[in-house]
């Protein structure tokens, strides 16, 4: 499939997703937009339940039955993926967008040999004509991810955690996808294996010039391997920019809090700054900015209106009071902020009692 339109490889625009549950409609993803170019690595970070995995599953067209696409579009190479018919979706999955799963330990079927499970994907997409050719391809992939090709004929339970993770990466690469989504790719592994696999995955990504989306709650993991970073909170993409910029000078108070809650090995010794409170209930999210109940900078307007994008070069945040408020924040906002502190405290007391 050749590119029909000149433009980004992957373009997500205003993606909005709901889950219908017994308790009500869960507003899982709210107007998320981003773009991804060939060879680029994007990180999506946020707490559990912030909608990262829902975004990933939408990109795979792999949503549960109770999910409803409430708005937005996703184009891959100019092709609207939500317009695909059922047969085309099957073609699309893995061939266009593949996934390294969150639970790599359990995403291999225990009753089949590991190699066979990768051959199965190659067979389904008719990448190779014969099984022996498909097996050769798996052997090449195994070497690429640092596994002995002889392990192809072993069962998943005979693999260690790290080996399984590598096998799952080989599986994701098996059909030459345009985009790979790595959903918490290393969470279940110990730190040393985690670091090694991340570095290898990055090397493979650069070697094959693939686009990759890392999804993690661990901002440190994402920082190492991505060019761009998107921070998600309560279904919204609240900050987006070059990874280095976001790390150096986060705009959104939530990003700042996330960065503050991870220890730095090489940096100065400092107490870890936790973030109090819990993520909001997405069935009935707070009005205005969803972060305002936990935000130290929240003011009256944060409770009333959803914030616009505040830009700082190529970096933006959806916030009324971005962190480096120097350049663009008008002075009356600061004044308002000062006068509203009392109200915020009161409401906080009210909730506590």
């Amino acid at each position, binding site marked *: 499939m050749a590119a029909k339109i000149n433009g980004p490889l992957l373009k997500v625009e205003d993606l909005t997703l709901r889950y219908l549950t017994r308790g009500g409609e869960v507003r899982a993803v709210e107007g998320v937009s981003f773009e991804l170019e060939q060879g680029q690595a994007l990180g999506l970070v946020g707490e559990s339940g912030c909608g990262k995995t829902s975004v990933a599953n939408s990109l*795979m067209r*792999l949503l549960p039955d109770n999910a409803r696409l409430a708005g937005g579009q996703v184009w891959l190479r100019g092709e609207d993926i939500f317009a695909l018919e059922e047969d085309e979706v*099957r*073609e*699309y*999955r*893995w*061939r266009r967008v*593949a*996934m390294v*799963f*969150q*639970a790599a330990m*359990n*995403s*291999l*079927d*225990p*009753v089949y*040999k590991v190699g066979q499970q990768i051959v*199965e*994907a190659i*067979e*389904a*997409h*008719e990448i*190779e*004509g*014969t*099984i*022996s050719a*498909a097996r050769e391809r798996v052997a090449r992939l195994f070497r690429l991810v640092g596994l002995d090709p002889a392990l192809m004929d072993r*069962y998943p*339970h005979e693999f260690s955690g790290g080996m399984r993770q590598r096998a799952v990466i080989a*599986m994701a690469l098996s*059909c030459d996808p345009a985009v790979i989504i790595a959903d918490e790719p290393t969470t279940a592994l110990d730190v040393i294996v985690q670091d090694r696999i991340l570095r290898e995955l990055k090397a493979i990504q650069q070697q094959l010039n693939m686009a990759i989306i890392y999804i993690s709650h661990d901002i440190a993991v994402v920082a190492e391997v991505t060019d761009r970073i998107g921070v998600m909170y309560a279904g919204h993409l609240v900050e987006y920019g070059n990874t280095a910029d976001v790390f150096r000078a986060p705009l959104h108070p939530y990003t700042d809090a996330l960065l503050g809650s991870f220890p730095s090995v090489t940096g100065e010794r400092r107490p870890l700054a936790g973030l109090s409170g819990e993520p909001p209930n997405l069935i009935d999210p707070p009005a205005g900015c969803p972060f305002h109940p936990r935000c130290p900078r929240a003011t009256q307007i944060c409770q009333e209106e959803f914030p616009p994008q505040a830009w700082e070069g190529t970096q933006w945040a959806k916030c009324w009071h971005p962190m480096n408020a120097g350049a663009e924040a008008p002075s009356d906002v600061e004044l308002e902020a000062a006068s509203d502190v009392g109200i915020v405290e009161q409401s906080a007391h009210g909730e506590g009692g």
Partner: protein
Amino acid sequence: MTGYLVRRAGQMVLTLFLIITFAFFLVQAQPGDYATFYALDPDIPPEVKQQLRASFGLDKPLWEQYLIHLKNTVTGDFGVSFGHFPRPVMDVLVERVPRTAVLFLSATVLSFYIGFFLGKAIAWRRGGWLEYTATISGATLFTVFTPAFALMMIWIFAFRLGWLPVGKFLDPLVWRHADVSANYVFGQMLLTAFLFTAFAFLVLYLLKRTGRVGLARWAGPLIAVGGVAALFVWSFSGVGGLALDILKHMVLPIVTLTLISFAGTMLLTRNSMLETVREDYVMAARAKGLPEKMVRDRHAARNALLPVVTSLVYSLVFAIDGSVIIEVVFSWPGTGLTLLQAVRTEDLPLVMGAMVFIGLFSLLAHAIVDVLYVYLDPRIRYQ
């Protein structure tokens, strides 16, 4: 694995010995013995009665009788049936066991397939009309009073509609001028069924061995050709009509048995499948772009199969000792009926022979399923 099999065989011998011992003393624990029937006849003089008991060996002490039985069983001598005198026990069993086995094996396999397919279908698409229909009718049939249901089936299909024979193994009118015995025709039928199954497996295996993607779709037509060829040979064999008569007699009991038992497998498969569909590897299979049918059959159902196979063992054992109720209602001359009569008349040699047979079969079925498990679940290894 070899070590395991050797140990397993040892356990089986021990278990079989226990089965024989228990069966012997249980039958002996009944009041009287086989000669009691004659002993009650006032026309027989006491000394003749005594002689009669002596000739059956029933005057010997219990432990001596037991030891004689044990010795004979070990040497493969099952003796002569008291009730079917002078036919040897082996002769009676060789005639009866295959009839029961075929009936119940067919019903077991059929209800296993129907149960498994329905179970996985209703677990895959929840809440549809199929789920309600299958669950309600399956559970109703599973719990219905068997003799009443069997009689109802006979009443509808044999009596009112007249589609099928009422009971028994064959129709004497059809066989009046036949120059072959029923056992011969039945044996040939079994042979055909066995060869056909072997052929089907061979075709599947060979097509898989070629390693060509997409070649597997020829398996169905090839197997069908084999089936047609078998039917062709039978229709020119001259005994095709006789075989058809036996088949006709088998339909009603098999359908009845299948109907009352498929729900067990169905509900078990459904529950097992509801757990496997939530597994990550099923989601991964779908993400890989596999067709839904493959996701369901190769991944979700394949893993759901494991606990279901365990339940199959018990049905297999059922396949040889039969069901007295079904055999009585359908006048089917099988093991269940034979064993019941033998126990009631204290036909010791026949009881013991049947017990050894049933015990051996159930032990083998368990062993086979344990070995099968190794192939079904690679995580299981015996040492």
